[in-house]
């Protein structure tokens, strides 16, 4: 580290630890969160390097090996360590490639939902009362529908595909960001630093994005982590219902839906994709808990 070689930097560092270091200090306290972080990093690694790690092409069909069991069971072989599915595709390769889709879904959904939600939330917090009411009622309307049902109907309108599933999930998750941002903005607005920025002549966009927004970020970051896992779950659920990624895409939910008929004959085609979803979602939720402990001073040490 560069700071360690510089004695001046070291002394100031000792007086007041950097924000990142303080964050890491609290985050590290939560062992589950650190565990989650490691799994998440592994997931990230797999998502990025899947084509290099995977032993086979995820869509290649090996006709000599339909529903071959995993290596440790009778009839398994090291050629297909986790077995093959009903058309002879390697389960392990499909699972590894599936990580890419899930990661992609999580990122895209969170960026769209958070980006849109934060902007609308800021707008609602700063706008006159009538506009604020209109925006919030609109969000109430979206929240009145069970999220999965609304996403399902939106996909039915847009046409079933992974991209449309992501758009639908982002729309459904976005009101949470709006509410959260607006509530934080409302609690920040009466504070002195906002007034002084206003008196100093800060423009409205500057006031919104530079002055107030950074102070509202903590709960939003936690929400982003939680909606990352919700997005993965919902996309898998849509894929399972046939309204997300379409076969032969190796998306985990879609894999489960394809494998449904074989559950009593070949447990591995059903067990592994679901396990992959569960482990990923669990890791992200563990991390989210740690983030909340580390970022939210009100809940700290409680």
């Amino acid at each position, binding site marked *: 580290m560069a700071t360690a070689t510089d004695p001046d930097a070291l002394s100031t560092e000792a007086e007041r630890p950097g924000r990142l270091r303080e964050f890491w200090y609290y985050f590290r306290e939560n062992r*589950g969160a650190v565990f989650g972080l490691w799994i998440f990093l592994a997931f990230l690694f797999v998502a990025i390097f899947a084509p290099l790690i995977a032993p086979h092409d995820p869509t290649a069909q090996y006709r000599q090996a339909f529903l071959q069991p995993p290596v440790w069971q009778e009839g398994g072989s090291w050629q297909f360590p986790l077995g093959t599915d009903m058309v002879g595709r390697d389960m392990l390769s499909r699972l590894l490639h599936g990580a890419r889709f899930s990661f992609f879904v999580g990122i895209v959904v969170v960026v769209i939902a958070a980006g849109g939600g934060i902007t609308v939330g800021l707008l609602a917090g700063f706008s006159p009362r009538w506009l604020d009411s209109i925006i919030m*009622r*609109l969000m*109430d*309307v979206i*929240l*009145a*529908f*069970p*999220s*999965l*049902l*609304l996403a*399902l*109907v939106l996909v*039915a*309108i*847009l*046409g079933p595909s992974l991209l449309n599933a992501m758009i639908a999930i982002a729309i459904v998750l976005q009101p949470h960001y709006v509410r959260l941002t607006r509530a934080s903005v409302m609690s920040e607005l009466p504070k002195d630093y906002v007034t002084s920025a206003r008196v100093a002549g800060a423009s409205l966009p500057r006031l919104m994005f530079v002055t107030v927004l950074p102070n509202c970020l903590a709960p939003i970051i936690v929400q982003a982590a939680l909606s990352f*896992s919700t997005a993965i*779950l919902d996309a*898998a*659920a849509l894929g*399972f*219902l*046939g*309204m997300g990624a379409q076969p032969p895409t190796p998306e985990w*939910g879609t894999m*489960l839906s394809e494998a*449904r008929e074989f*559950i*009593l004959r070949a*447990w591995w085609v*059903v*067990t592994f*994709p*679901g*396990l992959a*979803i*569960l482990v990923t*979602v*669990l890791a992200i*939720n*563990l991390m989210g*808990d740690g983030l909340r402990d580390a970022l939210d001073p009100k809940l700290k040490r409680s």
Partner: protein
Amino acid sequence: MLKFLLSRLLTFVPTFFGVTLISFAFIRVLPGDPILVMAGERGMTEERYQALQEQFGFDRPLIEQYIEYLGGVLQGNLGESFVTKRPVWDEFFSLFPATLELSICAMVFALVLGLPAGVIAAVNRGKLFDRALMSTALVGYSMPIFWWALLLIIVFSGNLGWTPVSGRISLQYFFDDVTGFMLIDSALSGQKGAFGSAVQHLILPAIVLGTIPLAVIARQTRSAMLEVLGEDYIRTARAKGLPPQRVVGLHALRNAMIPVVTVIGLSVGTLLAGAILTETIFSWPGIGKWMVDSIFRRDYPVVQGGLLLIAVMVMIVNLTVDVLYGFINPKIRKA
């Protein structure tokens, strides 16, 4: 209090109109001509097309269509299913008891396990039981329930052969609908084994649907209990020499229940979303499966009507919870 009630009702009204607007927009924003989509691959004659166009009023201005739609909605007229030709309203309410029965059983499952688990975890805070329980709860909370359902089917239906895979009751039993709840109807029918069969069919779907609420309730109960256990009146109760069970069970739990009840009330939306997956997997003839089937069959009046009825139901439940919460907690009323 009246002012509080009115203000809540006032926010209900615009949301209701928003919901009707969305469900109205549903058919009209579909890409392509909805009537041609309904016709499918077979196509239809020009006269039939015109007749349908007129029947749905697609040839008139949008605002006129919306006003007529809204008028229909307020009179309980949601159109007819393309497939069964029955009114959407009737279909909804004939299938609703199945979903309600499943949801109630799921909730009972979640409460019976979740409440005591949360209380015990809070009392033994930081000990092994607490940690194990909270880890399990987090796993439950992260569970893809459609996969959970398949696992339970593999174990209990496949390997052990204890439970059937689909439906509400074995086909050998016939009796009239009295309440629409299979558990009650089968018991009333007096047929030997009918009630048992109904329970066997119900148990796996109820566990699947109740899993996420169970995790949420256990976590929520624990944190609410922890908060209450730190209060002065608990210390007073303990100092008076009351037995610990009485302090925890009576004084603490009663006050910890307020946030828990809110969570239960607000989980209606979660239950309905879960019902979509659960009912589809177990072929449970309720609202969730009905909606999914209708989406696949392109039975648009059903999707439109079902969407509206479900949203209105969620809104009414949320409003009720909100108002009840106001009754219990005067601080909310003032805000």
